[in-house]
């Protein structure tokens, strides 16, 4: 498709959802299939406006179920495909995601997380962390999960997601939230055409000149065969571990380490500043990939810091992965709000002060 339209690289002011959609067009997606849901409808709207002009395919499906299965079909046919939704819609997509993961089809799924459970709220939340990083649907599988924290990353991670998805033949997932989707920030969009799509030999695109037909399936009736498929997937997930990415802010001399991702990490940046102003050495580790998870880095820091505070916009989900990585090396605390509420930097800083007091920490 024509990616060059509207593709100058000057900084511009854009909504997170729209920056993500424009980046996807520049990444050369062949088709987008989606269904409206707040707070991500701008993504579908952007594609329905832009794709016809720029030679791509866009279908507003009858449901998220249909959308993810259109993704399954089109990704299986050997094209670069994405969909997006928000929490309740992502729940509906879990069936398809499980099939896609088992059939090893590269694609991108975006979740602009809103507060749950149930119909919940349309405000930003991080309550879908478990669903994103533990698989989400049935069976043993993982998605590659990237967590942007700015509009710039909403755009950039589309490219990273497709690069990883196609490298590992695995669905990639961008876990953002309603605030990142709706906020406007300065963004320099990735250059169009900089992510060439390589033809694959496994696609069900019609046999053409091939002698052997291609089959895309996740059905293996013999348990021996199904076990082999699982072993293969697990091997792949192990190989993916080297793609782990995180951002460290003043972690090396920190007494208190904050661990937060996405919007939560932006709040924590301010907390680090508040601490440093009062000579409290706070550092921040921001996982960029939630799967694979930066467990080695957390384990390394756990020996150096006196306490860890995990800040999440949920009831405490990532804190379990942090605790596993820390493995008792230092105390792990949790703070956060739920249901679409966002902690203020001051609230988080107060929690840091409480920890210092309760743990009677002697700060360096």
């Amino acid at each position, binding site marked *: 498709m024509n990616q060059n339209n509207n593709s100058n690289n000057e900084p511009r002011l854009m909504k997170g959802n729209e920056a993500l959609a424009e980046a996807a067009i520049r990444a050369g997606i062949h088709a987008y299939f989606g269904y409206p849901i707040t707070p991500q409808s701008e993504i579908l709207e952007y594609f329905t406006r832009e794709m016809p002009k720029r030679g791509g395919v866009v*279908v507003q499906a009858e449901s998220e179920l*249909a959308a993810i299965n259109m993704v399954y079909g089109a990704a*299986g046919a050997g094209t670069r495909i994405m969909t997006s939704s928000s929490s309740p819609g992502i729940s509906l997509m879990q069936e398809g995601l499980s099939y896609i993961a088992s059939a090893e089809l590269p694609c991108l799924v975006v979740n602009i997380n809103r507060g749950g459970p149930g119909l919940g709220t349309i405000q930003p939340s991080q309550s879908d962390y478990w669903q994103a990083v533990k698989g989400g649907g049935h069976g043993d599988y993982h998605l590659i999960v990237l967590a942007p924290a700015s509009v710039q990353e909403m755009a950039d991670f589309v490219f990273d997601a497709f690069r990883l998805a196609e490298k590992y033949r695995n669905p990639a997932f961008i876990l953002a939230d309603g605030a990142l989707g709706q906020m406007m920030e300065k963004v320099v969009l990735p250059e169009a055409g900089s992510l060439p799509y390589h033809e694959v030999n496994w696609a069900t695109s*019609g046999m053409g000149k091939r002698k052997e037909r291609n089959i895309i399936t996740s059905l293996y009736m013999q348990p021996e065969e199904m076990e082999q498929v699982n072993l293969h997937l697990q091997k792949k997930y192990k190989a993916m571990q080297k793609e782990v990415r995180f951002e460290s802010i003043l972690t090396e001399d920190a007494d208190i380490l904050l661990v937060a991702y996405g919007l939560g990490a932006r709040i924590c940046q301010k907390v680090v500043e508040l601490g440093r102003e009062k000579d409290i050495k706070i550092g921040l580790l921001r996982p960029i990939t939630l799967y694979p998870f930066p467990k080695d880095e957390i384990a390394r820091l756990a020996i150096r810091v006196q306490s860890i505070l995990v800040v999440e916009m949920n009831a405490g989900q990532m804190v379990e992965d942090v605790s596993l990585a820390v493995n008792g090396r230092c105390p792990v605390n949790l703070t956060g709000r739920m249901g679409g509420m966002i902690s203020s930097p001051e609230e988080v800083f107060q929690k840091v002060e409480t920890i210092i007091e309760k743990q009677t920490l002697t700060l360096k």
Partner: protein
Amino acid sequence: MENKIPEEFEVVYCKPSTLTDMPMHYCPGCGHGIVNKILMEVVEELNIQDKTIGVAPVGCSVFAYNYMNIDMQEAAHGRASAVATGIKRVLPDRYVFSYQGDGDLAAIGTSETIHTVNRGENILMIFINNAIYGMTGGQMAPTTLIGQVTSTSPYGREAAAIGNPLKITDMLAQLPGAYYVSRHSIHTSNAIRKLKKAITKSFEYQKEKKGTCFIEVVSNCPSGWKMTPLESMKWIEEHMFPIYPLGDLKIPKEESKVTKENPN
């Protein structure tokens, strides 16, 4: 009887090259085998094996990819037409079909079915209606007849409790996106010949990007119905046809004009 084939004899019918060598798992006398075969005969005759992609979802149809020697995707239960939509939209010059059973197409996938046809996706949907869930062991389907005994309607299907058989093909024929809608059967060799013609026509329409072609095949399930294959064919005639009468439900406007002017 010793059967020596005289040298001068010619082969007039053999298994199409578009079927694989794998023996079919379907029960003896099952209509699935017949439709799998006829479909692949058409693909062979139209010489489109290299550009045809099939989608077969959960149900007895799920193993179709073992037999059809073409690129195929297995789909989740009910989602075949959405998967086929995805394929066709990115590869519009290929021939794409879905091959679905009644539980798949008319129960769990009703929404996908209706919207695919309503969008007029340029695909062929083949709907095997045998009034039962075959693969899971003979449970009641949306198309199960009133009074029909299945493992989940052990006293016979009652309209008051579970509704009437869903005539989804009649519903779909009302949608503007449907270009050709026809109901066929596999109970005799003539019926199968007609079915083959309908499939051939559907692929030709697909080439011309006319819209969705939908073929219902009133079929059997000897195992699920607890009958011999021959009894099941009789049962189709006696019990299925009154509810699911054979014939075209929608034919292209151009052709219906021709038919009116020249009834012969």
